[in-house]
């Protein structure tokens, strides 16, 4: 049959025809596709037809049919060539399952996470190869089983979709091989100069392997320089030690021995300032644990500017400006007889009171500690060392003093900002050919006057190993993706020098490599992290190295590697610097949740309420009430804050207990690059700060921009000008609302706090009163107060408010354990945060100035109380009422009681009427107002159709080979709740059930202490105790019977299963008497 192939009506059209048609098109034309160019029905059919040029299979002759079949079989075989032609499918079942693996049961691996270089031992909970939670390693000296919120939240960083994924060369995707080749070329060129053009910049390094590798590198290139910059490091402490002793040493405190502690701006309970804070917190709490009538309480005096965790639990607290701390230190030192020390107490600090403090210190010398923090200048550290030395030598009674010294834990101790300054100078001088930055973000967090960004541009080749593409990466030619600590082999020292082995619990999700692997590459001998770490430690493992190595991996730390104490010799009192002391002082502090900004892309930490301010998603210019009043500023006012000629736009936050004439700003905010959560306040297109985004989504302001080399911790002459911005700025989860005036009536018993002496002396009286209340309650009750009886365990919890330091570790633990979503600032502003556990902060006036010492009085009675109030922490979550008001009001029975006393939420049954929350007197129920936990793109948190806001950090399109990364962090034992569902604390029912299964398998009862709730586990001070209250010998039952134990809102008749234990304070009786005498006479009782 004759066919003209150009005749379309035949239904046949082949490529020849197209070529002709295309060839016929003259001139310059653009087309988007061939289809557009040759858009004919026949072409469409050609495209869609599986067998072109054959209208049906019937037209195929036998030979062609066999050809097609042969081809099909061959193509089918290609599926076996994965990784050759097809992408590798990594989801494979265990062909050979790891030993001890039971599906659905987690495995725990000991590892470590670091913060500012210092390691904390952790146990990684891993489900089928997927790490989901970090818990403290109970055997580890820096953890003791607890873990701070920043370390816990690092699990979320692992699954951060914004992580650096590929090796990038000038903005193009490259490979490690190409990088190694390129860097070797550059290094070879340096060989001749002995590496004079090579600079290495790291953070604080405690890793022996890394230090060893850097040592080798420096040996290879002797003229190269290693710089260290840690924006929130311990440089001042080392420099101070050098001043006092002539050499840098690490200082260690033993709070178990401490009877009297004086904090000179030393927030030793704060993980962001003291690497050993978890251990310190445990020891401090143990030193004031009271059970029944017995127990002794240490006494804590705090001088600090911004109320911190330490100040919040101090028995006496004086708000002083950061620059005034040295005067206090000098005064105390002079009274203690430290040679050469002088000091005049600042205004507002009574000399009589401080004399009493000094007497207290002297009386318990050897068991007293004076501690100062990283925000104080080296001289104060030196002076503190001198004070401690004086106190230790005063009696000589104590064999091992409460303060000890070791060689520096860090491998390369640098003082302050000199190192980064030198690096910047070298860069500006053009002498740097190759800059290797292992981590860090100096463009963002280096002192503003160093102008590191400008300097970096001068580097000929800049290499940045980083977890996220941040401000610094943006200026670097090579960006290398860094592995997460859960993906790599490594080692690091804890605060006391103990060496931890970091082992991976998941294969790297991206192309990342660890710092030591990169260093090995630089040395020209690329090796895996395992080999590098093993090579460091195997020789040091004694007679049976393999056994020792395995034990170290199993335990997570190498035994007996604590740094040995040294005696640094006599401490000299330094010459204290003089400060200009003019104008408004500005104090820079690391952020209690996002640290120096390295956790800015972590939604859990962004939404974690900062301990004192309860702010989320933002930092603020924090002022005392009277300073704000004198400047004419109100809460939440947008201001221009200038210091040293630089200005940022900030929001005011008025903080009772803050020092006057001082403004505190937290570092870490105002990010312009580094991930979608970190940069919520900036326009993603332009990278510019956007007031509207800031108002809605947070992101804060960059306080580092006001920080200079000479004013790293605090500065003078800050200026505040009101701005024209009319923004509703801050999202605080508690207080600072028109309703909050801290009105706690005397009749209310939500909070109980007493001084220790008052508690003991009024114990019987109070017990009698309580008994009367009970009796009255029983008598007035219409119905017999009986609950379901069951001969089995009855779960209950006690919270000892006396030891709670408000550190938030429990909040993050709960979030990680129970798949609690992040909701974003705009939702927090609407009070829709989802944390099951909150730490309520209450202010009260000191007992000495109360009318009736047995009650909490409201500040309005005594205006002075608002300036420096006492602070009480009250962790609050579902108290599992035996007679729960939420249960009868649910129309569908979605919240019901278990026979073991749990108030249970049945998510599947919940229809979301929210009546239960209304009827909950504790307000501990949380509602999914929107689809907070789902990552589906269809459901964002837009509350208006025209806005395109997304939950920060929630992935909206499948990236990363189709895996929605953030979902991987979810705990498979806990239901992920959808929209419209009520949720609340379950007492970690999944852990209860797990223990029940285990006990049934063994045919026994559940053991005391077998169930540990997530909050209890994370708590560094053992504030939370969970267990069976039906078992009279259990710890929880004993705590419940403690005379301090009370049931919050018991008068409502809810019969909570969680009881709180009253807070005790241990003020100095002398100071107490002085203050009582000086207190303003109470106003007339209101009519």
């Amino acid at each position, binding site marked *: 049959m004759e066919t003209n192939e150009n005749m379309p009506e035949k239904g046949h059209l082949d490529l020849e025809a197209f070529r002709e048609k295309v060839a016929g098109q003259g001139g310059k034309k653009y087309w988007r596709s061939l289809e557009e160019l040759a858009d004919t029905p026949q072409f469409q059919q050609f495209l869609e037809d599986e067998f072109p040029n054959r209208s049906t299979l019937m037209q195929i002759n036998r030979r062609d049919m066999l050809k097609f079949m042969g081809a099909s079989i061959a193509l089918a075989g290609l599926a076996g060539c994965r990784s050759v032609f097809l992408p590798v499918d990594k989801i494979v079942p265990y062909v050979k399952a790891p030993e001890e693996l039971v599906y659905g049961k987690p495995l725990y691996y000991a590892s470590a996470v670091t913060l500012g270089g210092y390691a904390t031992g952790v146990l990684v909970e891993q489900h089928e190869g997927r790490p989901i939670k970090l818990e403290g390693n109970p055997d580890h000296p820096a953890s003791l089983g607890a873990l701070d919120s920043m370390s816990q939240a690092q699990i979320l960083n692992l699954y951060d979709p914004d992580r650096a994924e590929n090796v990038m060369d000038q903005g193009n995707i490259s490979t490690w091989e190409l990088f190694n080749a390129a860097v070797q070329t550059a290094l070879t060129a340096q060989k001749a100069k002995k590496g004079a053009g090579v600079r290495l910049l790291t953070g604080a390094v405690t890793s022996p392997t890394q230090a060893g590798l850097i040592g080798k590198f420096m040996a290879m290139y002797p003229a190269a320089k290693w710089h260290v910059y840690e924006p929130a490091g311990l440089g001042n402490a080392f420099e101070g030690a050098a001043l006092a002793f002539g050499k840098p040493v690490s200082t260690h405190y033993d709070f178990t021995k401490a009877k009297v502690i004086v904090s000179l701006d030393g927030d030793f309970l704060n993980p962001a300032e003291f690497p050993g804070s978890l251990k310190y917190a445990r020891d401090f709490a143990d030193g004031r644990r009271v059970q029944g009538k017995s127990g002794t309480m240490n006494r804590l005096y705090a001088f600090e500017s911004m109320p911190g965790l330490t100040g919040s639990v101090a028995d006496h607290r004086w708000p002083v400006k950061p620059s005034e701390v040295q005067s206090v230190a000098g005064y105390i030192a002079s009274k203690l007889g430290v040679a050469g020390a002088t000091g005049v107490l600042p205004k507002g600090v009574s000399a009589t009171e401080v004399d009493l403090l000094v007497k207290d210190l002297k009386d318990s010398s050897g068991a007293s500690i004076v501690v100062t923090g990283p925000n104080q200048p080296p001289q104060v550290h030196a002076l503190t060392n001198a004070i401690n030395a004086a106190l230790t030598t005063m009696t000589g009674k104590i064999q091992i003093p409460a303060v000890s010294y070791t060689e520096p834990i860090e491998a390369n101790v640098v003082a302050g900002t000199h190192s980064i300054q030198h690096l910047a100078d070298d860069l500006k001088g053009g002498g740097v050919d190759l800059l290797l930055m292992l981590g860090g973000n100096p463009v963002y967090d280096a002192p503003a006057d160093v102008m590191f960004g400008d300097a970096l541009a001068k580097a000929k080749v800049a290499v940045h190993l980083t977890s996220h593409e941040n401000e610094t990466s943006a200026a670097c030619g090579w960006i290398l993706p860094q592995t997460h600590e859960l993906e790599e082999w490594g080692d690091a020292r804890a605060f006391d020098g103990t060496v931890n082995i970091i082992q991976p619990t998941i294969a790297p999700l991206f192309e990342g490599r660890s710092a030591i692997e990169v260093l090995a590459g630089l040395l020209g001998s690329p090796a895996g992290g395992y080999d590098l770490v093993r090579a460091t430690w195997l020789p040091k493992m004694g007679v049976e190295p393999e056994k020792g190595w395995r034990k170290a991996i199993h335990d997570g730390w190498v035994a007996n590697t604590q740094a040995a104490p040294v005696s640094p010799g006599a401490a000299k009192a330094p010459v204290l610097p003089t400060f200009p002391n003019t104008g408004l002082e500005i104090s820079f502090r690391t952020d209690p949740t996002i640290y120096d900004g390295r956790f800015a892309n972590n939604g859990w930490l962004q939404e974690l309420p900062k301990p004192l301010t309860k702010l989320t998603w933002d930092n603020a210019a924090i002022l005392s009430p009277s300073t704000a009043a004198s400047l004419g500023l109100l809460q939440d006012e947008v201001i221009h804050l200038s210091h040293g000629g630089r200005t940022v736009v900030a929001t005011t936050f008025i903080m009772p207990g803050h020092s006057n004439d001082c403004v505190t700003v937290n570092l870490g905010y105002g990010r312009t690059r580094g991930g979608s959560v970190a940069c919520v306040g900036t326009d993603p297109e332009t990278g510019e700060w956007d007031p509207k985004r800031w108002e809605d989504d947070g992101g804060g302001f960059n306080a580092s921009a006001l920080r200079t080399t000479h004013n790293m911790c605090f500065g003078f002459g800050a200026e505040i000008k009101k701005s024209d911005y009319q923004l509703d700025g801050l999202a605080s989860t*508690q207080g600072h*609302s*028109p*309703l*909050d005036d*801290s*009105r706690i*009536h005397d*009749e*209310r018993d*939500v909070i109980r706090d007493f001084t220790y002496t008052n508690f003991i002396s009024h114990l019987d009286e109070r017990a009698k009163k309580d008994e009367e209340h009970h009796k009255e309650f029983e008598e007035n009750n219409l119905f017999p107060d009986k609950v379901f009886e069951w001969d089995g365990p009855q779960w209950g919890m006690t919270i000892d408010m006396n030891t709670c330091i408000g550190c938030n570790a429990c909040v993050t633990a709960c979030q990680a354990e129970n798949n609690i979503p992040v909701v974003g600032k705009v*939702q927090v502003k*609407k*009070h*829709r*945060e989802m944390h099951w556990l*909150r730490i*309520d*902060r*209450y202010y009260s006036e000191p007992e000495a100035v109360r009318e009736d010492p047995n009650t909490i009085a409201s500040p309005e009675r005594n205006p002075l109380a608002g300036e420096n109030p006492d602070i009480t922490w*009250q962790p*609050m979550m579902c108290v599992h009422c035996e007679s729960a*008001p939420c249960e*009868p*009001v*649910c*129309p*569908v*029975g979605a919240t019901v009681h278990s026979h073991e006393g749990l108030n249970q939420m049945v998510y599947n049954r*919940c*229809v*979301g*009427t*929210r*009546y239960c*929350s*209304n*009827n909950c*007197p*504790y*307000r501990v*129920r949380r*509602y*999914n*107002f*929107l*689809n907070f936990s789902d990552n589906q793109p269809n*459901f964002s*948190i*837009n*509350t*208006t*159709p025209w806005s395109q806001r997304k939950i920060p950090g929630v992935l909206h399109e499948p990236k990363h080979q189709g895996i929605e990364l953030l979902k991987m962090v979810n705990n498979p034992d806990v239901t992920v709740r959808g*929209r*419209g*569902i*009520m949720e609340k604390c379950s007492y970690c029912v999944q852990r209860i059930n797990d223990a029940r299964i285990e006990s049934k398998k063994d045919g026994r009862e559940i053991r005391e202490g077998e169930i540990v709730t997530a909050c209890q586990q994370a708590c560094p001070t053992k504030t939370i105790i969970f267990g069976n209250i039906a078992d009279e010998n259990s710890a929880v039952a004993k705590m419940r019977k403690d005379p301090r134990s009370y049931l*919050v*809102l018991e008068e*409502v008749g809810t019969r909570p299963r969680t009881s709180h234990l009253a807070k005790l304070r241990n003020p100095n009786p002398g100071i107490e008497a002085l203050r009582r005498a000086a207190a303003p006479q109470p106003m007339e009782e209101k009519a």
Partner: protein
Amino acid sequence: MPKKPLNDVMITGEQSYASLDEAVGSMVLNQKRHKLPWYAMFLLGFSGVNVLGAAVTWLLYQGIGIWGNNWPTMWSFDIVNFVWWIGIGHAGTLISAILLLLRQQWRNSINRFAEAMTIFAVMCAGMYPLLHTGRPWVAAYWLLPYPNIMGVWPQFRSPLMWDVFAVSTYLTVSLLFWFMGLIPDFATLRDKSTNKVGRIILAIASMGWRGSNQHWHRYEQAYLLLAGLSTPLVLSVHTIVSFDFAASIVPGWNVTVFPPYFVAGAVFAGFAMVMLFAIPMRAMYNLKDLITDRHLDWMAKITLATGLIVAYGYMLEVFYAWYSANPYEFELLVYRRFTGPYAWAYWMLIACNVVIPQMFWAPVFRRNIFSLLFVSSAVTVGMWLERFVIIPMSLMNSYIPSANQPYYPTVWDFAMFGGTIGFFIMMMFLFIRFMPVINIFEMKVLLHDLMSKPPARTLPAEVPVGAGE
């Protein structure tokens, strides 16, 4: 100023049976009677319905988070509007049932549209409890005690459960009552209609009514029975709605005075709404002979009476807050309501519900349509504010001081509220156009009674109310 005489009869003007048919029936039969005001009002209502549709669609798509509800104020506009609408729906049944049983003949000219109001208001109200749930697609049937293989039943102790029964029963009985009353009138219109389609529809609606003695006998009995059924419902519905609050332990909610006080408030709001609707309608359709000033005067008196009960309720709330010595209750009721950040709402409520209705003591204000409209509007606003004061304001701060958080509504709260108002207006105006707005046959009976009896007083009676009686 001399008192304005009030024509003391329930029907004025030269009226015959035919003129009554004409006055009311022509509103249905002669569609030309509906002029610009009708179209304007319908358009207003229809726009509101569109807003409602958008608001509900967006709500179902996104969730409750589009509203301003927060932690701890989990209920706000949703339940405020629910209670408000249910309250408005109270006048109709009260007029139809209780006044029928009390043989108050003046109810005859207002019962029909008051009942229609009830039904539409309950429809508006009914949307809220369902849509305010987080998952309405399951709430729609999980709250019902239907047998299922899982053996899961609703929680019968929950007041929300009782609400489901109370509101659905109320809607059903009101609908039946309304429709039964309409049957003889549909038959009248069927007979009068000249339009074929209209006749067929009316014939179906009149269910074969021929007006035989037997029909009338059955009708009277059934109507009386339904009236007997509805009477307790008038009291029970709002009593049960008040249990949503009274049965809780929330300070400001847990008050035993709530049931009677809510019922009185409902009648109060309901009569205000009846007046707000009746006054413009009788002007628009020239029905002043059937809905006379005397009717308005009676309604104003009931409004005043129920308003005083409500005011007594406010006093008792405060009294109990003090007398119970419950610090939470006292703080909330006295401190927060009187001086808190939302004190304006409370004082406006007192102004609207307590102060302004006192105008009705003076006959001059009961007979002036402007003052009537003013007071009715004030009461309608005041009753909304009352629910606002009770519901979100009690939730904003209760036992735990750390959980005190303010509440602000969003545009969607207002959209949904405005939307239901639009729905109500649209339904009412459709009702005016397609159904007899006044009970024709009862008016005829009334006319018959008035004409057959020797007049007790000379007509037209120029006797001022309250002066000569």
